[in-house]
Each structure stands twice: as C-alpha cells, then as structure tokens.
C-alpha cells in the first residue's frame, strides 16, 4: 500500500531526486505558494491537480526559476543541491525540463537552431561532447516522427504559426531531444483533442517512464492520467498541498470536484 503522502515517505524504490520543503513564493508581492512540501524520487510520476489559481503554474515557474517569482521561504533540493541557487539554464543542465502551458513564439529562430543551441549548451555544461549538425538532425527527426510533428515544422521559427496542439507536441519533441531526468509538465494536456492527447501521453511515457527519471504532471483533468498513470496524486489549493494519495484520488476528484478540498 502506498503512503497517503509522498512527502512523509521515507523508504523508496529510487533515489531521492527533488525535495521541496515549506516553499513560499510571491508574484508581484502577492503570496501564491504558502508552504509546499513534496518529495519526488527517481522512477516516480506525481500528478499535481487543483483548481484555477491554486498555484500549480506558479509552482512550475518557481521550480524552473522564472524571473518575477520570488521565493520567500523554504527550500528546494535537486539531487542534494540547492535548486534555488541555480540560474534557469543551470537547472536545465542539471536535468530539469519545464513543459510550458503556453509555449513561447520566437520569430526568427528556427526550432532546429534553438534546440541544437540548447542541447549543446547543456552538454557543454555537463562536460559532454557537443552533437554535430548531422547527429542533431537525426535525433530531431526521430523525436519529431515519434510525436507526429512534421520535420518541416522543425525548420520553421519556434512555435510561430503553430496551432495550440502543435505547440504542445513541439514541447514534447523538445523534451525528447533534451531527454531530461526531471520534467515538470504544466498543463501539457490543455487544448488537445483526444488523438493528440494519446500521442502526447505516449510520448511522456516513452521519454520519462524510466527508473532514473521523474515527472511532476500538472493537470486539471483525469484524462491524461488515464494514459500517464501517476504513482501519486496531490491536490493543491491556496498554495498548499491539501491532500495526497494514489491514482484513485484523481478519479475521486474527477467525480466530486475540488469543492470541499479547496474550501
């Protein structure tokens, strides 16, 4: 039987990866996170659910280091290192990936150029050899094919002229290419039809369902969790985790809503 809350779990299958303790954060001086505690071990998928405004996206941005999101209290450790001391690009080099709820358009920079720059910057930071143009294109093609994104789109400017669904696929292609150890996926399922959801869910499983990787899956809905089955489900309300459980908690939420918990 799984413990009710992963944050109190002491023994586990995998190594400790992410440890969030008493995390408080403000945006524009307004308190959004009010004491989050969460422990994520390698090999685990954690779903974070909760109503709008509960702080889900703020948690994602704080973990990724977005400017303007100020941590006022608490700590976050990634592989035993102080995550909050790292710059956003250093967090990426340490294996963290943020899947954006609203992927950003970058006119004038092609996806291929962007991703090769990003991947090689990470590899350099880790002391690994850079990929040649040929090696990179092969990798990009494999990942684009797997996510059903036309390679021609990879040559176009980042997310410019992409539909909502294509942007989300592109996030997953990026994730496949970068191959992170810890992914924070912020409503990757929003705005997707059921076919796209299946493709993306399968992509998440393929890339991240591994003993040495972990996922924080932020979502509103049960439907993605039918494909990417979480080991733990946490409910966020008013900037705190108010309930944790196994996958059955998501089913319960789907049936009964957040009403009581968020109150």
């Amino acid at each position: 039987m799984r413990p009710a809350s992963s944050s109190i779990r002491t023994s586990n299958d995998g190594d400790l990866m992410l440890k969030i303790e008493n995390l408080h954060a403000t945006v524009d001086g307004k308190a959004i996170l009010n004491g989050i505690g969460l422990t994520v071990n390698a090999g685990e998928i954690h779903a974070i659910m909760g109503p709008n405004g509960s702080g889900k996206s703020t948690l994602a941005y704080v973990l990724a280091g977005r400017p303007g999101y100020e941590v006022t209290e608490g700590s976050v450790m990634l592989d035993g290192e102080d995550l909050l001391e790292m710059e956003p690009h250093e967090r990426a080099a340490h294996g963290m990936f943020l899947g954006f709820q609203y992927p950003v358009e970058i006119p004038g920079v092609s996806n291929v150029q962007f991703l090769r720059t990003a991947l090689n910057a990470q590899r350099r930071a880790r002391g690994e050899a850079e990929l040649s143009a040929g090696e990179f294109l092969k990798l990009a093609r494999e990942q684009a094919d797997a996510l059903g994104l036309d390679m021609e789109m990879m040559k176009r400017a980042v997310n410019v002229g992409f539909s909502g669904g294509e942007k989300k696929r592109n996030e997953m292609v990026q994730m496949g290419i970068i191959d992170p150890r810890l992914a924070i996926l912020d409503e990757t399922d929003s705005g997707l039809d059921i076919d796209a959801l299946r493709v993306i869910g399968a992509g998440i499983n393929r890339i991240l369902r591994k003993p040495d990787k972990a996922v924080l899956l932020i979502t509103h809905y049960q439907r993605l969790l039918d494909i990417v089955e979480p080991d733990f489900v946490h409910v966020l309300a008013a900037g705190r985790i108010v309930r944790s459980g196994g996958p059955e908690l998501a089913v319960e939420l789907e049936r009964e809503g957040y009403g009581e918990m968020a109150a």
Partner: protein
Amino acid sequence: MLLDLPSNRSESWRWSDLSALQALAEARPTGRVPDKLPWIACDKGVRLLFVDGELRDGNVEIGPLAIATSHPLGRLAGKSGWSLRLGRGHAPPGLVQIVHVSTGAADHLPAEIVLDDDAQASIVESFVGTGWTNRLTGITLGKGARLMLHRRVAGPAGFVSLIDQARLGEGASFITATLAAGGRDTRLDGEIELIGEGAFAEAAAALLARGRQRHDASLVIRHSVPAGTSRQMWRSVADDKAACSVAARVEVARGAQKTDGEQSLKGLLLSRGATINAKPELEIFADDVKCAHGASVGALDRAALFYLQSRGVAPDEAKALLTRAFVADALDRIGEEEVREAFYADAEAWFA
C-alpha cells in the same frame, strides 16, 4: 581647415553627433593597412582596395567626377573618384568587392555607378579602420538594370558617412543592405528616386551600437512616376548609452499612381541608457497608392528569454540568439549566400 558641418538645429541632423569629425579631419593617417582584409571568398569578380581614399590595388577607372549634391558632407567628396560603368545587358559574374581602409585620418571620395539598360552588378563595400571615411555615390540605373549594393561598416573607431544618390529607370531594381557592426559611428544618407515606371527599390539595414556609439540614418525614397515599388527594413539595436536614429521617408508624387511602398522601422533596446529614434514618414500626393509604415521600439522579449534559458541556453547566448533573430529581417534580404554569411559573421562577432 575648419569644417562647415550641419548643426543639430537642422531637422535632418537633429540626432547627429559630428563632434569627432573636425579632429579626424586634422589627424594624420598612419598608413598602416591591416594584414587581414575582409575579402569575401568568391571565385569570380573584381577586388578594389582603397587606403585613405587612394586606390591601392585593383583595376578601376579613376577620373574627374561631377556629382551634383547639396548634402553638406557630400560636398566634401572632391572632384575625382572611381567609376563603374556597365554597358547594355552587361552582367559580369561574381562580386565587385571594394574595401575601404582608413588609417586614422579623414578621406573623401566620390564614386559613380552607371548601369545601362539590363546591365547587372553586385557590389560589396567593406569599411575598416579608424578614421573618417566619407563617400558620395551617384547611381544611375537604366531600363531593367539591376544593382545589388551591400555595405558593411567594421573597424574599432572613427566615422563613416555614406551619401547615396540614386536614380532608377523603368523596371530597374536597386537593392541595398547595410550592416554597421563595428565601433565606428555612422551617418547614412540616401536619396533614391524612381524616375521610370515599375522600378523597384529596397533598402535594408542592421545598425548595431554600443558604448557611446551613434548610428544615424536618413533615407528618402521618391516615387516620381507610376507603378514603383519600394521596401525599407530598418533594424536598430542599441546597448549601453548608444543611440541609433533612423528617419525614413517615402514620397509619392502627384502622378505616381499604383505606387506600392512599405517601410518597417524596428528598434531593440538592450539597456536602459540606450536610445532608439525612429521617424517614419509618408508624403503622398497621389490617390491610388498602397503605402504602409510601421515603427516599434522595445526590449528583448522576457518570455522568450526565459523560454530559452529554461532549455539550457545561458542568458548571454539567449540574448545573442534573440538579437540575431531581430536583425535577421534585414540581413536575410541579402540574396547572395556568401555575402549574407559574411555579414552574419560580422553580426555574430558583435553579439559575442
């Protein structure tokens, strides 16, 4: 000699800083030519090397030139300069490359480019060194003639002033791209007149400034006859306390119906102390024309910066990538690949 320079009270010089020119006019050239000159690898074509305004190497006609101008810097150009004349239908392969080296003083040189009907030329002028390089270029394009004239200004210090006066015949094309990516201040003036129906003029520029550097440009495209097309693409980037100023005007004469004119002026501020001035102007006296103009000035998109960083790109590299994308609108207009790559290499060196 005391230079008679325009003052900031004059509208077209309001953003200029010509204060360095008098000292440069009095300075003595060192005559030292850098070992490495910015030639672009190209199988065919012509190379001309000017050092302090004197032809040092290459085969070109130098002789008396009379280019009428009222421009205060253009008037300094002198009476003898180089001349490129191509006869009807003549289109020599490759590039005409001209490197202008300034070794610390001022030099003035007029030039004329005359393409007869259906002639075609692609010219790249590169400006290096530390002094004041002042150039007046008269351009005459015959029916269906086609001129690509691309300029890049490099060099650590000094001043470059380029004054172009172009007249385009029926169906002629004049395509020009300019990159200012060194440490030299610039003043770029252009007067392009479409005097034959269906002519096409395109002016693109990427102006990159840092420190206390100034780039200052003023372009007028005059549609005097019907059915002409003009495009302007200005991309200014200013960092530190630098300033880029662009005044770009399209004039459409009374009879110049079916004119199609577009101008896009964009500025990117990389620091709080930097300045971008953008002044797009349209003066239209015909009633059946299509003219569009847009101007915008802003900082780098923070969301894009964070997106790049979240994928592992360090802040400086992310800024360089976005800045490169910003000027790509202008540099991508360069058709010849080897020229475009050379210009990009200069821009990359600036970003690094």
